[in-house]
């Protein structure tokens, strides 16, 4: 049996390894090593837990069996999941962290002796507070992530669900969680504990249903953050350093990502959380609905334009992920490169359904990461490029964000696609994007619309090159 001090030191070491795991992600070269540190940290934490309990009887076997079952399921998912489904996967994983936190809190509440927290009905006050916070945040993470998962998976409509009195109701429930926590701590009643959990599950659902599909990058980051705070809450209960460090890391990581995503849309965090975007807002430009002339072309025209270009910038968006067009796109780019055409990729911070979504898809299609650029890095290059190839993106290219203060997306940083000599826009139809606003780019003199499925169009262009 490991002494408490020694195991505390090992938990500290695994916490440090987790910090290094995140640190490694500062560049793709060091990232694989970082992931390795993370794995070592996890192995240390689990091994030390077994050694410090020192119980290797039947219970140990049962624990191993459950560990193995989970591990096999996890490994199976990790190998099978297509890269386009990454947002759903991450949302699903968040829900599991949340539920695990809830279960651990329940176990600790029912059997506090095992955790040195006192006896049932007489749990130490501090531990009870920490436990309730961990359980409540965990429950919110769980149910919120389930909704996010259903929306991303398309099982539930991606459009916001709003109803009258939604915000007062949510506010009331949030206040009741605080009141319940207070009452629970003063009475130690197990009924209150269950009610607290039920109410927290409910608020998780209610908080996420009004948020629309394209705001999912913020939601996923936010739930990422919550899962961290839930882990930290449990970490305080268990007096475990590894868990406290990790919870804090994950919590701040998710918060920063949410901030970056909100900035990418020029919207405040509260604006996103309160939801309803894209459902009710009527923009000024949608009023003049008269048919404006649009130039549309076919794969042949597009191939001709690109063949005569010397530099091409590709702007991918969520539509590319939906059409699974990343491989076809890379084949097209290979052909272009053979003709000595310079190609780069421009990625908007909120392109796709989660932070970095497009980068992963391009990496999957073997696009070297040094050809892929962020908005600030590449935005000045559009003026010098011959062709911009917009595939599956829309709102992030809309010049209205720079010109029309009435527009709901005014002030959002956009890619200066219109400065290119010509713009090729692959899209299924002229329908407006998620924000519900018309894209002026469609009607520009130098824009050629390619109405087709992104994957099919890209393949056709390659054939014509």
């Amino acid at each position, binding site marked *: 049996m490991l002494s408490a001090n020694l195991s505390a030191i090992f938990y500290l070491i695994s916490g440090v390894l987790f910090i290094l795991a995140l640190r490694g992600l500062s560049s793709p070269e060091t990232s694989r090593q970082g992931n390795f540190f993370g794995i070592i940290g996890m192995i240390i934490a689990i091994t030390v*837990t077994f050694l410090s309990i020192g119980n290797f009887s039947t*219970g140990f076997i049962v624990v191993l069996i459950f560990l193995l079952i989970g591990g096999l399921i996890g490994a199976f998912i990790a190998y099978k999941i297509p890269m386009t489904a990454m947002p759903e996967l991450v949302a699903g994983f968040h829900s599991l962290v949340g539920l*695990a936190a809830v279960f*651990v809190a329940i176990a600790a509440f029912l059997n506090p002796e095992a955790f040195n927290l006192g006896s049932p009905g007489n749990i130490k006050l501090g531990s009870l507070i920490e436990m309730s916070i961990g359980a409540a945040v965990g429950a919110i993470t769980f149910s919120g992530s389930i909704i996010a998962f259903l929306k991303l998976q398309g099982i539930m409509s991606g459009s916001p669900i709003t109803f009258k009195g939604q915000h007062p109701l949510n506010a009331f429930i949030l206040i009741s969680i605080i009141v319940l926590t207070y009452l629970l701590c003063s009475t130690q009643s197990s009924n209150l504990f269950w009610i607290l959990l039920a109410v927290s599950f409910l608020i998780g659902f209610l908080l996420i249903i009004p948020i629309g599909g394209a705001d999912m990058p913020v939601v996923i980051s936010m739930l990422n953050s919550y899962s961290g705070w839930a882990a*930290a809450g449990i970490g305080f209960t268990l007096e475990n350093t590894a868990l406290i460090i990790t919870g804090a*890391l994950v*919590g701040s990581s998710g918060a920063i990502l949410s901030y970056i995503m909100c900035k990418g849309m020029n919207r405040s965090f509260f604006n996103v959380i309160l939801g309803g975007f894209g459902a009710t807002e009527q923009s000024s430009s949608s009023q003049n609905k008269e048919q404006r002339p649009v130039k549309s072309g076919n794969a042949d025209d597009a191939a001709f334009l690109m063949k005569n270009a010397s530099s091409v910038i590709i702007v991918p968006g969520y539509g590319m992920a939906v059409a699974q067009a990343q491989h076809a796109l890379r084949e097209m780019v290979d052909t272009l490169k053979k003709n000595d055409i310079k190609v780069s990729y421009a990625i908007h911070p909120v392109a796709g359904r989660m932070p970095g979504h497009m980068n992963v898809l391009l990496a999957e299609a073997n696009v070297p990461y040094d050809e*892929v650029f962020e908005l600030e890095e590449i935005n000045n290059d559009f003026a010098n490029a011959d062709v911009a190839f917009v595939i599956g993106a829309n709102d992030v290219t809309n010049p209205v964000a720079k010109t029309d203060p009435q527009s709901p997306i005014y002030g959002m940083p956009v890619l200066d696609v219109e400065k290119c000599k010509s713009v090729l826009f692959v899209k299924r139809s002229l329908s407006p994007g998620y924000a519900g606003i018309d894209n002026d780019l469609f009607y520009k003199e130098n824009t050629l619309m390619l109405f087709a499925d992104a994957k099919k169009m890209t393949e056709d262009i390659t054939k014509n090159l």
Partner: protein
Amino acid sequence: MEIDPFIFRLSIFILSIFIGYYVVWSVTPSLHTPLMSVTNAISSVIIVGAIIAGLAGNSDTIFNTSSIFGFLAISLAAINIFGGFLVTQRMLAMYKKKKKDK
């Protein structure tokens, strides 16, 4: 007067938030998706709590309500740990630099 150990844990917590803040800002935006999957994996270190709960029963009663929740939590966290690290590894293996000969 002795300092409550809670204060030490709180100090660790606050300092870790700051470490997280600076470390995460230095993560390159193209790796934000792996960042999310790896944070998923590491936050599942909550499994240590689940293991404690699962092993709490004595040899007569391995399965009581508390330990069953512990066992379930072990499986959930294990899905995340294995799934999270492996999918991160799979993603990171795809990030390649331009070939030199081009």
